[in-house]
């Protein structure tokens, strides 16, 4: 995981914020560039089924039928389809990352526009390494929809491409297109485990691979085995692949083998899952010391395994020019009274207090947030049952041992994890993720898969809100029993599986953008997998819900016998306050209705650029309702609202 790291201490420094001069700098773009290198050879483009059909012959007709119902791809086409899927995925999840597709072993040669093709014969740059754009996606889509044109490109050359050339082509692409990227990866998809038999050709491939390693490019091969041939990576590939930085990597599932699959479809699925698993480069959130006891410190790294993905923000666009352009907004800071521009050296940070400002020096500013060195310090252990469901503030962090700074970290970490699993314990720890980060208390719980541990940030007493006042009425047992019947019917024994619930708002956003960008029809129907399965609910629990309804009517009737309706209870309980209480409630409701309408109004005005035409009162009300400052002149208010929507 740390080749990137060793290559660029910048990333490390940003993580650790160790030295004074550097801490606030966003050191290096945390961007990824992935180049797919797909081999084109007779076996890679062979129509599926040649070898499959042989064993299908023996299989039942049912099996055969099911195969024919699904599309069947050659290995090369399957690889291209994987690349397409990854491409679309990355547009949503990491829109700033680059991707490219290089075919090698092709009869045709194409390498970038205008550049001489002589240097990289039999390499076909299907998609240049860049942030994907609509035309290139369209072109790829077109190829995949038109088998004839695809097979023309996928025509293997008589003589296989030189691996040294392929690797140098990749080197060139990464150096020119993705210079200074934090993560650069070369995905090689091939079924040829011994491409270079000639000694000098091998040597130059090995040299070129070494160049890539020194450049910080990581080679991630995906090997395709066939039922008749098991891919042997020791023949060639272990000479060009490197230990990726950490000692632990010999323990990593390095090269995914797409093997053992007997038919083209499952091979495609396997390849797909192997590639999706690697589509996002693993980025460590922090490198940290974990203090298990006094004088016993090990090294760990933290990763975010769950992070909310939101639709990309909107941009201002200039349409008047020759081509569309993104408008860049620049903020100038001016002194309110004199309208003079303020230079950074004259800016001071201050807190508002008692109508005035309380100022601190930069030094004091840092100091007041400093609670000691970054550390994960275990204070002791408690049963996991002590962790309440509501003890949650934000997403968890996955931690995994690192041998980089402390040897023996992995075994010690593993021993701790074993113990926590065996005794159902959790650790309680003081956690400072990086220099001057706010310290939090965190629970440490072991994770079965992936193997490691999770940090669950706990609330402080200041973060705990009080309960609202609600009359206490407990349901009678017969009603609870009926509800249990409902719940049993709607039981999902496998638990919550996120993969089954794509984010409908996000999906729609990108489906529409995709359709507009690729000039396709807008999708009419949109499938929302988060909606409950009403048919199933009705079928399995309809009757139970009706029974529960009857039971509830019964329970309410019984309840009314013992206690009058709540209005009266409140009447007496609240006494003289009741009148004002009701009034307050009404007023509240009106206020509630307000923001909803105001929201629409403001949004509409923003969209039409007519915020200026609204009154100050309306703007202020809205800002206050959003918890933003409502001070300043009208222009300020408008600006603040605009910024709000822009960043949305």
């Amino acid at each position, binding site marked *: 995981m740390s080749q990137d790291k060793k290559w660029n201490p910048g990333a490390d420094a940003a993580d650790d914020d*160790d030295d004074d001069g550097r801490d606030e700098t966003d050191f*290096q773009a945390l961007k990824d560039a992935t180049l797919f290198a797909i081999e084109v050879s007779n076996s890679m483009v062979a129509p599926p089924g040649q070898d499959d059909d042989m064993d299908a012959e023996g299989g039942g007709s049912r099996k055969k039928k099911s195969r024919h119902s699904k599309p069947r791809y050659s290995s090369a086409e399957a690889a291209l389809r994987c690349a397409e899927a990854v491409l679309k995925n990355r547009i949503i999840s990491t829109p700033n990352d680059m991707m490219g597709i290089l075919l090698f072993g092709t009869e045709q040669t194409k390498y970038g526009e205008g550049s001489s093709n002589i240097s990289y014969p039999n390499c076909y740059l299907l998609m240049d390494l860049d942030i994907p754009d609509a035309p290139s996606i369209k072109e790829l889509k077109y190829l995949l929809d038109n088998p004839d044109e695809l097979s023309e490109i996928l025509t293997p050359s008589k003589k296989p491409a030189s691996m040294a050339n392929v690797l140098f082509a990749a080197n060139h692409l990464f150096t020119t297109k993705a210079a200074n990227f934090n993560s650069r990866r070369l995905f090689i998809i091939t079924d040829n485990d011994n491409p270079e038999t000639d000694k000098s050709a091998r040597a130059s491939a090995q040299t070129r691979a070494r160049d890539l390693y020194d450049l910080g490019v990581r080679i991630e091969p995906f090997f395709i085995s066939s039922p008749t041939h098991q891919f042997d990576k020791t023949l060639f590939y272990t000479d060009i692949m490197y230990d990726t930085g950490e000692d632990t990597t010999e323990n990593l599932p390095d090269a995914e083998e797409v093997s053992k699959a007997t038919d083209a479809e499952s091979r495609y699925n396997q390849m797909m899952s192997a590639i999706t698993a690697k589509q996002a480069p693993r980025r460590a959130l922090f490198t940290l010391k974990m203090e298990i006891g006094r004088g016993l410190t090990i090294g760990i790294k933290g990763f975010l395994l769950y992070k909310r993905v939101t639709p990309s923000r909107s941009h201002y666009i*200039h*349409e008047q020019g020759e081509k569309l352009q993104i408008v860049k907004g620049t903020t100038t800071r001016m002194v309110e009274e004199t309208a003079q521009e303020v230079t950074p050296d004259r800016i001071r940070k201050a807190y508002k207090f*008692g109508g005035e400002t309380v100022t601190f020096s930069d030094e004091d500013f840092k100091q007041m947030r400093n*609670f000691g060195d970054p550390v994960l310090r275990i204070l002791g252990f408690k049963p996991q049952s002590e962790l309440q469901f509501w003890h949650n503030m934000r997403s968890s962090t996955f931690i995994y041992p690192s041998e980089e*700074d402390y040897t023996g970290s992995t075994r010690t970490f593993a021993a701790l994890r074993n113990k926590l699993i065996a005794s159902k314990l959790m650790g309680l720890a003081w956690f400072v993720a990086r220099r001057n980060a706010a310290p939090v208390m965190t629970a440490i719980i072991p994770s079965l898969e992936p193997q490691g541990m999770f940090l669950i940030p706990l609330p402080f007493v200041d973060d705990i*809100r009080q309960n609202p006042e609600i009359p206490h009425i407990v349901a009678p047992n017969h009603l609870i029993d009926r509800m249990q019947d409902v719940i049993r019917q709607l039981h999902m024994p496998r638990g919550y599986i996120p993969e089954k619930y794509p984010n409908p708002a996000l999906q729609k956003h990108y489906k529409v953008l995709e359709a507009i960008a690729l000039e396709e029809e807008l999708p009419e129907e949109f499938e929302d997998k988060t909606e409950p399965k009403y048919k199933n609910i009705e079928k399995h629990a309809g009757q139970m819900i009706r029974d529960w309804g009857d039971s509830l009517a019964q329970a309410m009737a019984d309840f009314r016998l013992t206690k009058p309706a709540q209005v009266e209870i409140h009447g007496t309980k609240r006494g003289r306050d009741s009148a004002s209480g009701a009034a307050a409630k009404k007023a509240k409701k009106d206020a509630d209705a307000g923001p909803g309408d105001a929201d629409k109004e403001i949004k509409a005005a923003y*969209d039409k650029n007519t915020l200026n035409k609204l009154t100050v009162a309306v703007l202020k009300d809205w800002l206050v309702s959003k918890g933003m400052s409502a001070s300043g002149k009208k222009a300020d208010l408008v600006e603040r609202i605009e910024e709000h929507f822009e960043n949305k």
Partner: protein
Amino acid sequence: MADKQATVYVVDLGASMGTCNADRSETDLEYVLRYLWDRITTTVSNGRKTDTIAVVGFRTDGSDNSLVQSDDNYTNIRVLNPIGQFLMPQIRGLKKLLGPSTTDQGDGVSALVVALDLIEKYCKKLKYIRNIVLLTNGTGKFDFDGVDDIIEQIREHKINLTVLGVDFDDPEFGFLETDKSPVKAENEIALRELCDRCDGIFGTVAEAVEEIQRPRTKKTRPVHSFRGHLSIGNESINPESTLSIDVERFPRTMVAKPPTASSFALSSELDPTNDLQTIRNTRTFQVGDDDAPGKSIDIDREDMAKGYLYGRTIVPISAEDQEIVKFNTGASLKIVGFIPKSGFERSMCLTNSNIIVASKANDEAIMALSSFIHALYELDSLAIARMVTKDDKPPVMIAMAPIIEPEFECLVEVQLPFAEDVRQYKFAPLDTVKTITGKVLDKHRFIPTEELQEAMNDYVDSMDLMNLEGLNDPLLPFGQPEDVFSPVLHRIQQVIRARAIVPDEEGLPDPSPVLLNYSTIPTGLDPEEELARLRQTADVCLVPTKAKGEKVGRDKPLSGLDVGKLLEGRIQSRRIDPSNPIPEFRQMVVSVRGEEGIRPLVQQMGDIIKDIIHHSVGDLQYNKAIECLRVIREDCITLEVFELYDSFIRELKLFVGVDRRDFWSRVRKDRLGLVLPSEDSRSNTSIEESNKLYYGR
């Protein structure tokens, strides 16, 4: 919480308050003021206009109150600050007035009457929380004639009276003054009786001062964030068999954020008052235009449309089309199904937690939800639901668990990830090791030995927290969230308040120990023996920084092949190929010895970098040059020849000059300037020197 409040502090300023007692180095008044300033600044920091304060001094030099004209019982009592919102000017004003007087004349009980009078006139019959806090050392005159009327008044207006005395006896707190004067003893008894009779609080200052060390948590009024129906089934299709309960949602946890600092501008003139000026942000909009001077032109607001990026492609979406991108929803809380609690992956939870309760005015809903809560509890299950908090907000998936407390029931909810929110990172298993050849090992230096595992088991068992009590509230279990204060929140509030009272002070006060008590292993757990055994069996070793550097360029591919041999020819040439500069530099730099060997390589790289910059169209090739620069800098540091880099970067600055000034700003942004002592201890470059190179002309 947001009730209006009026608090009158009645402070004893008699001459005797200026003496030091009980081996304290501060005077009685200074001691009392610690408490007073803390309270006042806490009130100021909430910034509420309706949280008002008055300060009355007694045993003062001279008199200033509205009752003294008609009654000379009220001499030597001064209203130092009338009731009103306290702001910085009031703080400054009060600070000047709070000194010990030259007299011990003045009656404390009369001062209480003045305070009562202030409150009565200010609050009238309106709804206010009324407080009077009396601070004294109890050595002066307290005339308890007519105290019954005063008590009557305090009770009638529901005033909370607090009396805090310097070195007053408090057996509960554990304080007794042994050499108490008879006058003081008498006053103490009478004041205690006064407090008892009007349900007031009587205490010793020591306890109050200790109390202010403990951060106060701010109560927030619960505000609902969703109102709607919790439903099972679809009402529009199967109205008869759809369950629907009126519910509301309130936060259970929410980060209490520290106050945020704002930016201000220093006055341009050398202003002695050091007033800061408000900054206003103005936004302007530009697009690139190669023909325009400065390569960009300003755009009018009216000429801008809105749109999104799809990859690199710009997709304009007009205001009218916004609707088609939007995912239309209606506020709802729909049950998707139920899952067993036992297998739930806690680590999936993404957000703070919220509670769901039935509408409070709807008995039927309360009853219905109660059955839902209890059924979930009894089946040990969680409910999975799709929630939309407001119309047209995007839906979220949530898990709901039951909470059943005495007199209170609710569901508690946290958000779960969607498919897109899960990152598919791979991690090697920790219980086995797979070698390159595919062999799976269960004995390896990464896998704990039996001895290590046993030592770890014993150590963890010895670190059981379940028998410890809370460090802040002994009634709570150790480490329970209710017992832990947010360090940053209270620290920042603390320093702001401290700085507000003493603006000229240098440095910051130390963080109060309460904020740090959960930062270290609790005393009471001291498993020395187990820890020693664990340390020994784990045998964890720090990797020296040097060793990390030594690895540079010596790595071998997985097969162990000696690539170095293959590179020999290239290395011997000592010529770096401009089309492959970084790898070749790295390979050569480790093959040479000392500064003399490295210098020509740095020089070659320098020429290559200059060439890249020189031929770059606009800033297209800058990244490539920056990357080369970073590599040289890094290797020069590792190989302890940072001087070579320093001299090159100075040279480069001259090279880029004015024409390529934008390149230099990249160097500055990426911090690729002079090597600092923090990077190599031999460097003696100061931050100023480094900044001079970055920013200087």
